[in-house]
């Protein structure tokens, strides 16, 4: 059994790296994570200012130029990527966790549990996302609860709060099919507990699709965070994120286009890489795929 699982994992990994661009994307993302983890070796600090040296063009001294306070944008982007990636990762994780629970309960038990949970899911799917994100961001930050004053946390929570419906629907769909499969009915007949069946027998079979949809969610979470920060409702200064650096650049688009360009480029590259990884995963888990090469 163990041997089989290993070979299964190996097969998927091999299939994944057959998708060349997905392989490259993994590399790009790894470099990014590595670089942001090592941000402290950068010659500048993200907060050190040199006001007389503001709006420097990108050059050897400052690779991505400097901002209005004379801070090194490259360094700020490195530190910013920590926050942006954390927001993307944690909000995806949270949303999938909620989604899996709702979807699994709904799909496994069906009946009135399914009806109620799916009504709630539908209600959430009807919400005009961006409007509610803005309202929620304001609402949570106004609660004057100390831990909600951490804008990073608020952004993670609200993104998850408005995206768990997608994995929930996905997982429910998978459970509806899988619970009728023979090995499940057999286990049930043998008296396996519900929890055990859900966690040990059905869920492992859903991992592929969940991973694929997780990449999509993470890509969109990163874009959402940057959009919220751009509108001023996301992560607050002095914490740098790609979106918040971009938002301070709004007034300087002509004077210092690089302040807007590089954070945007980082978002673009990251999201692109994540999308390719998702594509690779889809291929890896999809039994039909035949590669041309």
């Amino acid at each position, binding site marked *: 059994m163990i041997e089989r699982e290993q070979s299964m994992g190996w097969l998927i990994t091999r299939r994944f790296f057959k998708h060349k661009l997905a392989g490259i994307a993994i590399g790009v993302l790894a470099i990014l994570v590595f670089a942001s983890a090592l941000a402290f070796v950068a010659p500048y600090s993200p907060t050190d200012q040199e006001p007389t040296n503001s709006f420097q063009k990108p050059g050897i001294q400052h690779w991505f130029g400097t901002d209005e306070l004379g801070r090194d944008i490259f360094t700020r982007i490195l530190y910013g990527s920590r926050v942006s990636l954390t927001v993307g990762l944690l909000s995806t994780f949270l949303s999938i966790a909620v989604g899996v629970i709702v979807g699994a309960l709904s799909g496994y038990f069906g009946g009135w549990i399914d009806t109620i949970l799916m009504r709630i899911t539908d209600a959430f799917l009807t919400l*005009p996302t961006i*409007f509610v994100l803005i*309202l929620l961001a304001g609402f949570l930050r*106004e609660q004057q609860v100390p831990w909600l004053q951490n804008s990073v946390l608020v952004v993670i929570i609200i993104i998850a709060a408005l995206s768990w419906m997608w994995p929930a629907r996905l997982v429910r769909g998978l459970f509806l099919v899988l619970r009728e499969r023979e090995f499940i009915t057999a286990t049930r007949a043998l008296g396996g507990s519900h929890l055990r069946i859900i966690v040990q027998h059905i869920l492992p079979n859903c991992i592929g699709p969940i991973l694929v949809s997780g990449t999509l969610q993470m890509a969109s979470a990163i874009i959402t965070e940057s959009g919220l920060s751009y*509108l001023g409702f996301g992560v607050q200064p002095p914490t740098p994120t790609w979106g918040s650096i971009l938002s301070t650049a709004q007034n300087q688009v002509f004077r210092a286009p690089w302040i807007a360009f590089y954070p945007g480029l980082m978002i673009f590259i990251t999201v692109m890489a994540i999308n390719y990884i998702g594509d690779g995963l889809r291929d890896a888990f999809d039994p039909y795929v035949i590669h041309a090469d």
Partner: protein
Amino acid sequence: MRTYALRRIAQSIPILFIISVMLFFMVRSAPGGPLTAARRNPNISKEQIQALEEKLGLNDPLPVQYGRWLHDMLSGNLGDSIKFHRPVNEMIAERIPNTLLLVGISFLVTLIAAIPIGVWSARKPYSKFDYSMTTVTFIGQSIPVYWLGLGLIIIFYVTIKNPVTGNPFFPVGGMNTQGRSGDVLDLLWHLALPVTALSLGWIAWYSRFLRSSMLDVLHEDYVRTARAKGAADNVVYYKHALRNAILPLVTLIALDLPSLFAGALFVETIFSWPGMGRLFWDAAKGRDYPVLLGVVMITAVLIIVCNILADLAYGWLNPQVKYD
């Protein structure tokens, strides 16, 4: 089908009710409220503000305020804007056509581009065309809308100019050139950049989706049969395969509507498009809660209506579906 539609409408009423309660308390329980800006103005005395709060009924208990709002809303009245002193109905009615125009045209452009791309990519998967389309669509999908919008302004409004007249190729502000309102060509000209910014990401998303759903369908027996019978490629792809592949797309589109409105908010702000997103945005900054709630409720209703329409379209496209 009619009973089905009616049932769907009936089902959506509790959903709207839940949404209305959630939103109302979220918006109204925040401290500060619509008079915050006035509070900061040293020319306005605290007594004046208190009198105004009293007049607007902002001091009543929240459930009472909610009851009043719900009652008015059910009789078709969304209240008056605190800032504009105008009926919210009227303000929304001015903006809805503009947003629907922007979103509608973007949507049309999206479908016109995404369907051929999706079909062609699926026809020769892993071909050069497919790979380059994957790349192009991934690019489209990975650019933040507002960043793309800014870029479009800089490229087509500031950098590249018409060599003959020296004027920019595309305008950026509003819906019409001054003094040319009602001119359709002028309107299209003003729509070009906002529509591009809004639809690029969606073209990517739908063409990818269509490609994979086409590939699924192409594995099905009936397509293989059709092929074995010697049907022409075009017939196979467009008649048999596309018809079935497009079904899940219809459902997806309905689910994606909320995000389409989200993109519209950014595009409307960047291109000064007078739509609902901007109305909401201004109201959010000024805490004009009757407008806020009105816009969100109306958008939710719009989304539900589109969802029902999508379901009906699904049935129309796929006669196998029976509405019990």
